[in-house]
């Protein structure tokens, strides 16, 4: 088990390194660099700009830059922002909790609601409730999350004359203000996952409920609660776990747009701004964060998978 985790962490590290190198190089191939964008229309001479480039280390060949950066990164130094001059690590750690809170809430709410709706739909198969759940699931699956956010925002503003506060306050300072601010983004981020999970839960619950082992449980005279919540639901969780991994990618991608829309100072906003500004060190750091979060989540999901299903636990998969 430990060996398995270590090996997965090793793979994860390799994936992250490759992603980092890729982004590092791609960013430098995109036309325009931080210096020319900053100094646009300021009348600064080309010579001065070149001096600034040399300062940032941008004059060296890409591979040299990469090599130097990797050396620093290995020592824990991710560089400084071309803009604020602040160390990237510092800039970054400020914002990580905001995005993690947002993403985690969206995933948890989406998963819980999705599973609940899926179970209800499966149990009322063919009824109006089932039809409603399926209809909404398809609708939410096909509408991008920022559109959901816009619709919520507009709807609440028109019908209830309510809109979220503009200035972000952390949950530590003002919980109600924070909740008001993140409510719409969380819902918008969560609905896609909720819809996918509801559909998956419904179909795997139906499959499970029609299975031989559920017939055995019923033949034992088990109560409906035992049949549904203990046996059928537990057998559906593996399918849902697989979806959660995919969901994370959507949610993380969604934070980039939604944090921008709702002025939430998380890593999504940071990476968005950094890409526009060609603030290479910040972009690379954010990339590492997103890749790392993803790798970690996949490992956690794999472990949960093994926790739920003894066939995986005793099989070769974890040795």
């Amino acid at each position, binding site marked *: 088990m430990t060996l398995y985790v270590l090996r997965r962490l090793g793979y994860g590290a390799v994936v992250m390194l490759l992603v980092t190198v890729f982004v590092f190089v791609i960013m430098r191939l995109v036309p325009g660099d931080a210096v020319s964008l900053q100094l646009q229309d300021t009348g600064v001479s080309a010579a001065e700009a070149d001096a600034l480039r040399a300062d940032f280390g941008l004059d060296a060949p890409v591979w040299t830059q990469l090599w130097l950066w990797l050396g620093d990164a290995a020592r824990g130094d991710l560089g400084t922002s071309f803009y604020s001059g602040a160390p990237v690590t510092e800039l970054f750690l400020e914002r990580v909790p905001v995005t993690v809170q947002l993403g985690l809430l969206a995933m948890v709410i989406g998963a819980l609601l999705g599973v609940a709706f899926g179970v209800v739909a499966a149990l009322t198969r063919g009824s109006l409730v089932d039809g409603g759940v399926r209809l909404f699931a398809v609708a939410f699956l096909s509408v991008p999350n920022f559109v959901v956010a816009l619709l919520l925002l507009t709807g609440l503003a028109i019908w209830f004359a309510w809109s979220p506060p503009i200035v972000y306050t952390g949950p530590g300072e003002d919980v109600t203000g924070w909740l008001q601010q993140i409510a719409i983004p969380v819902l918008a981020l969560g609905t896609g996952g909720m819809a996918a999970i509801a559909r998956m839960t419904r179909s795997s619950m139906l499959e499970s409920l*029609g*299975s*031989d*082992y*559920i*017939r*055995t*449980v*019923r*033949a*034992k*005279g*088990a*109560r409906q609660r*035992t049949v549904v919540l203990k*046996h059928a639901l*537990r*057998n559906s969780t593996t399918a849902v776990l697989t979806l959660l991994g995919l969901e994370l990618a959507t949610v993380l991608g969604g934070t980039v747009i939604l944090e921008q829309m709702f002025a939430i100072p998380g890593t999504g906003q940071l990476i968005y701004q950094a890409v526009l500004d060609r603030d290479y060190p910040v972009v690379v750091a954010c990339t590492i964060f997103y890749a790392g979060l993803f790798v970690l989540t996949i490992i956690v999901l794999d472990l949960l998978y093994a926790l*739920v*299903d*003894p*066939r995986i636990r*005793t099989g070769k998969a974890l040795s």
Partner: protein
Amino acid sequence: MPSPPLLEVDDLQVRFPTPAGPIDAVSGVSFSVSPGETVAVVGESGSGKSVSALAVLGLLGAGRVAGGSVRFRGEELVGAAPDRLRRLRGADIAMIFQNPMSSLDPLFTVGDQVAEALREHRRTPRRTAKARAVELLREVGLPDPERRVRSYPHELSGGQQQRVMIAIGLACEPALLICDEPTTALDVTVEAQILDLLRRVQRDHGTALLFITHDMGVVSELADRVLVMYAGRVVEHGSVAEVLGAPGNPYTRALIDSIPTPATPRDVPMPAIAGSVPHASDMPSGCRFHPRCPRVHDRCATEPPLHDIGPGRASRCWLHAAGTAGSTVAGVRGVG
């Protein structure tokens, strides 16, 4: 009959909805099981054996009982409250199935699944239930039960899984155990062990068995009485000795002829009955067996009733009607 029947099924009709309209998988099936008795139900695949058994337990899923009655110890079960049926299942009537691998929940230990059968019916502390599970597993002959309670189904062989199923069935000491082809998925030596086990269980606990199979050999080894089903109907019933010794119905005859004997040459195909069981949506008119029957004649265009052909014995064939010579069909061979 010395004792009143434990289970009485009368004129049972089971209907399933299908995209092409409702079909009757079973119609007009009647039989009874007395305490401690073994009744075998035989018939080819699709003749309605499982459906009849599942109807007794109220486990038909999409299907429903469209007519007739099922009485257990005199109590009517058709239309009984779901909770009443639930309390009966497992506690008074238990059932084991054909495929033990898929019939056990892969995510729970076998000990859990045996203990659950107890805990769903009686307030039993977890520890007590666990201890009882070990005992039950020992009783059904699972080796090293103290360790095996913690095994998962996939860690056991097919025969061991079926033993676990039997342990689940026996947990609450039911008066009736329904076995739906419990050995079909197992190889021959394991089959013999499981049959031995069932015989021992019956002797020790006085459990009545309703034993579904399509193997006439198993019938003669295990059962007191036999019910032969074809295309959703009972075509013959009676004591095993009589039915197997002198089958009244051409279908029973054909089934018996398809039993391989040690003398059966290995390289010659089994004398199976030509053709296949008609589906409920496509039932032949008249006698349901007539398209495949070697003794088919004019009267088979109308469906024969069950003729009483002896004490506790009946057969659904015009050959028994007055004016037709011979009440058994001993001379008929199945066509292969």
